């Protein structure tokens, strides 16, 4: 009906789909943390290649993610530019040397190899994490989502609210559409024809009924859940939870090895940064 804005799960029949949700969540979190901490360029390139190869195997097609990817690329570029604008000498202070490319060292805005190298590292971090996040989201059955969150220690109430939110996204979207059109029929112009402030005001007119109808929904759903004993015990079981299989243990082992390598490199480099300028 509409352009696909949200990324969605589909059974693409790959080994990634068959892994348990908890394995994928743990791997994603583990690799993200080590990737965010380290500034070892060699390591970052390594896990970036790793995540791109895995992404290739996930059989996710580009058009499914084109929108999300363009948003992420936009934000990453903005972020890199802002880092430069606010701290153009950060690379120099990290690596302790200064190789000027443009401008003089008297100026606030100059360009050094160190700064470029530092921002290149940042870019690598974004590039390696995005495919991993997309793989996790798009190969994990939403039904398993809550179960895997619960398994890694989140309370089941919180986990289930995540699942419920997923369940209601389509309903709220269609509510929004209906309300918006009904308000437009009354004369609230929110299309591109109207001025910005008019559109904002029109948007508020939609929000109010949407919030009220969503609150109603929440009240009814929470009653429906209580009537079926949600919240009775300290724990609950999950119909869709998957038992760990050999492939899960293997995956976790591979991820653990990658993380250990990352930590080992901290010792080799004597810190989080790998310095090619010395």
């Amino acid at each position, binding site marked *: 009906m509409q352009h696909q804005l949200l990324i969605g799960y589909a059974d693409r029949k790959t080994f990634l789909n068959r892994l348990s949700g908890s394995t994928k969540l743990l791997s994603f979190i583990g690799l993200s943390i080590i990737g965010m901490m380290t500034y070892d360029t060699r390591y970052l390139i390594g896990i970036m290649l790793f995540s791109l190869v895995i992404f290739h195997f996930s059989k996710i097609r580009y058009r499914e993610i084109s929108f999300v990817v363009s948003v992420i690329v936009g934000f990453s570029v903005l972020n890199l530019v802002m880092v430069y604008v606010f701290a153009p000498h950060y690379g120099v202070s990290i690596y302790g040397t200064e190789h000027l490319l443009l401008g003089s060292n008297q100026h606030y805005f100059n360009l050094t190899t160190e700064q470029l190298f530092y921002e290149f590292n940042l870019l690598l971090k974004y590039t390696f994490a995005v495919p991993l996040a997309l793989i996790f989201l798009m190969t994990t059955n939403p039904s398993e989502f809550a179960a895997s969150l619960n398994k890694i220690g989140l309370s089941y109430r919180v986990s289930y609210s995540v699942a419920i939110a997923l*369940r209601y996204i389509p309903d709220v979207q269609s509510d929004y559409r209906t309300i918006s059109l009904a308000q437009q*029929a*009354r004369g609230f112009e929110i299309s591109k024809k109207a001025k910005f402030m008019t559109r904002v005001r029109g948007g508020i007119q939609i929000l109010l009924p949407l919030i009220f109808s969503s609150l109603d929904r929440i009240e009814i759903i929470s009653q429906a859940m209580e009537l079926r004993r949600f919240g009775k015990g300290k724990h609950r079981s999950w119909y869709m939870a998957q038992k760990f299989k050999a492939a899960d243990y293997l995956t976790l082992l591979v991820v653990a090895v990658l993380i250990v390598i990352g930590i080992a490199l901290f010792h080799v480099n004597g810190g989080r940064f790998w310095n090619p300028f010395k």
Partner: protein
Amino acid sequence: MMTAPIISFKDFSFQYDSQTEPTLRHLNLDIYPGEKVLIAGPSGSGKSTLGRCLNGLIPQSYPGKMSGQVLINGQAIKTSTIFDLSMQVGTVLQDPDSQFVGLTVVEDMAFSLENDQQDQATMRTDTAKWAQTLELQDLLTHRPQELSGGQKQRVAMAGVLIDNSKILLFDEPLASLDPASGKASMALIDQLTHSEDLTVIIIEHRIEDVLQQPIDRLVVMQEGRIVANDQPEPILRQSLMAQLGLREPLYLSALLHAGIDLDNCDHLDQLSRLTVPNLTEKLQAWSADITLKAPIVHTEPLLTLTHLCFGYEPKHRIIDDLSLTLHRGEMISLVGQNGTGKSTLSNLITGFLTPQAGQLSFDGQNLAALSVKERADHIGYILQDPNQMLSKTLIFDEVAAGLVLRGLEPATIEKRVLATLKVCGLYEFRHWPISALSFGQKKRVTIAAILVLEPAMLILDEPTAGQDLQHYTEMMTFLTKINREQGMTIMLITHDMHLMLEYTDRTIVLGNGNVLMDDAPANVLTNDAIIEQASLAKTSLYTLAEQNQLNPTEFVAKFVQAEREAR
């Protein structure tokens, strides 16, 4: 009966903390195991509150003052939690959509087992068993959005039956189903009552539809009290329904029109077994006595659709080459199965959707050139749920909003708003906050907010859903009035066969992307093939006419005429 009651109210009263008056007053009611009980009553009579006492939402979610006692299977509700009671009483809520908690059918069925920490093997066995009983095997991995209303309701039933609770409570089970699904649902409930030894309590005001299957007891509530508690037949015989603001079954009204003394009738609650001395002669005499008036014919075309096509996916067309002309001053009902495109069609007319092919012209003007806002000046569309339309806090502001946005003079706005409020019977409430209004009044505010724009045509989606007979009659009298007096063309989208029969002159049946039939309502509801194809339901009038060798179409038309004259 010798056995002990499974549910017992003893001098029970309840008052919500948020209200100043008690909602239930000194109730005494015993329900025995295996009984099938229908609880009926107008809105605000306390029937839903009674349901909430049974499943534990009172006092857990709705605190209030209680006196007297309610025992369910020996447990006092005062000292039980909602979780304890849920093992005894399974509740199927009014809107099966909101009851659907899981992301797929099978997860929803297993939901309560998950909360009881059952292992996966048990859950698989149990869901498989109930999927078979309720014929859901092929739907297990489907998402709620892919199911029909009837299927969702079956999932909801499976989700509570899986607990093996012996009491099943249905809160307005027919409200969101089309007539055919409603009929199927009633038959299924009846079958389960016997096969699973259930005690069933149905809260519903559509009595005729529930009575399609035998009911052991009918409890009628009014202003928080039980005013009738008996087998259905004696209650029907005394014509208590009409006095209590409830709709009588249509065949009963027909008997009364024909001057038949109900005291002489047997099996009044079951049309198929109804025996009345000289029934055929009396009905035939009544029928012969009435001459059908020629219907008023409207001929001035207002809205013309030609070769309209639309589909969300190019290959699957919901509206397929549809052509139709609506005339000025007509009162039309648009009916058809859930999901056949009734709403899609009205969205095409209002410009919410754009057709892929075909033309729409209104009063000679091509609609394609007009925006949603411009079309709204000619055609008003009123959504089913008023909460989706209301965006202001005061009634006056809400009704004025459309005019303010069209940049009219404040004095003109005030004049037109006040005039509209008078027409809609809302003038006294003009300074009230919208939140203080009842559902039916809110609905009327949304109609006023559209009427003030002076459209030539109104489209209303289920205008009477969720309203009791009194509010229903008020709403329809009001719509009939603006149709007659202002010559307003009105199209009603509805599942209510009674509404279509009694208040509209022309019925358009939608199916397979096109018009299946376009005729007088009495003709539609006596056409077997169409009834089957469009998931409509035969009314009891049809059956009554058939059983007594009368021409059903003519009989139904005469009945409608007699009803309208009596109004």
